[in-house]
């Protein structure tokens, strides 16, 4: 994959030589890709391995309310596992309901909850039940 410097040192391995940066970017595909990325996102953090990135990536056991999101950067584990953060359980259920395109679940026929009429507590909200459909692998 790497090009060799034929004129000067045909036998030497490219990666181990001391060359100037510009030559390297042309030779090492990784460096060329890095240049591409920085051209697209100039404000990308200098230290990709720093804790800011891991903070955004880690969603388990870490509250993100205190850490500002840098939208142009990604964590060491990427954005993929970042799920929506919720202010509280009410917020969580709102988001779930929207996704499922359903009405907000009510607690029962005799409690007609209206927004602002009653402050919901975790106990009011039904547990999200997973699908009870059998896996298609077993079908």
């Amino acid at each position, binding site marked *: 994959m790497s090009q060799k410097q034929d004129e000067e040192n045909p036998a030497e391995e490219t990666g181990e030589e001391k060359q100037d940066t510009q030559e390297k970017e042309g030779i090492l*595909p*990784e460096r060329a890709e*890095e240049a591409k990325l920085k051209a697209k996102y100039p404000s990308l953090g200098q230290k990709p391995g720093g804790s800011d990135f*891991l*903070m955004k990536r880690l969603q388990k056991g870490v*509250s993100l309310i205190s850490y500002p999101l840098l939208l142009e950067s*990604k964590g060491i584990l990427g954005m993929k596992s970042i799920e929506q953060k919720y202010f509280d359980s009410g917020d969580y259920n709102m988001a779930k309901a929207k996704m499922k395109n359903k009405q907000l679940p009510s607690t029962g026929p005799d409690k007609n909850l209206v927004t602002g009429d009653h402050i919901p507590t975790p106990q009011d909200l039904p*547990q999200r039940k*997973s699908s009870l459909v059998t896996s*298609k692998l077993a079908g």
Partner: protein
Amino acid sequence: MFPKFSLRSMFHGAGGGNDIQWCFSQVKGAVDDDVAEADIISTVEFNHSGELLATGDKGGRVVIFQQEQENKIQSHSRGEYNVYSTFQSHEPEFDYLKSLEIEEKINKIRWLPQKNAAQFLLSTNDKTIKLWKISERDKRPEGYNLKEEDIVDIKPANMEELTEVITAAEFHPNSCNTFVYSSSKGTIRLCDMRASALCDRHSKLFEEPEDPSNRSFFSEIISSISDVKFSHSGRYMMTRDYLSVKIWDLNMENRPVETYQVHEYLRSKLCSLYENDCIFDKFECCWNGSDSVVMTGSYNNFFRMFDRNTKRDITLEASRENNKPRTVLKPRKVCASGKRKKDEISVDSLDFNKKILHTAWHPKENIIAVATTNNLYIFQDKVN
């Protein structure tokens, strides 16, 4: 860089120098392309005899398949795997204290060695490990939650200083007090639980020195280890990072003894792979029963096998196009650059949504289970 490839260059498989030809055996799961998130397979594991094969999915469900007894009359194929039991292992939870949703996705399944008629397996999501007992008689599973116990905690005092996370862990197959865990920085630590209850000090640290002149923005991300597996012998361990598979001798900490490139052609695509998040895909890897061949997945529903003895490798595809039983799989080749030959596929044509993250190899036979997004393929070597 890539070995010259032709249809005849099959590798020598386990158990003597016969060429292995892999054949389609079965495929499980829905045909339609519209995949529900719950159906995404998240783990695949054979039990110790290979008679049972378990899968877990994002919907928290476990499906167990059992191999049929071989048909003694028709010996041209091994027994098929049919559904033995299926159950809901984990349910979604909402952690009210942290305002976080805990996924029901099954991260791992591990079988316990069988002691009596009942089968035991462990299934885990992000929070809870469950022990399931499946009685032989009625095949109905009973579950038990295990008490959580921290053995390794690398959380820094101040979470803002967090720079490294644990990515995978495994117990040594023979030495029950020893385990390894890998990190997002590409290191592996071996710990002995007899040394102390909290194994924050390792007894061995495995790390390959990096050439500083090669370092780039992507270096740390692609060095993150997504899986670590001990060999059956217990003498070696294998790690998977984004582009390669490495074999380590437990007696040598400073570098791996073998390195196999899975899809080196992706190095010139890292920018796009970072943008579409694929660079963070967590591929797993596995050993065959005799530790002579290792296997791992890639994109475009390709999977790769490396023979440690012959140093030959093969790329195969899990596709419904080859789904007639006993159809021999044709080796695949990716064209990295230059003129694309017939039957080759160019890097730009690869489907990065079709990724094989989970594979498993029968502990004794040449039968493999390969999971695409929502289908489970079973392949076996051609008998006679």
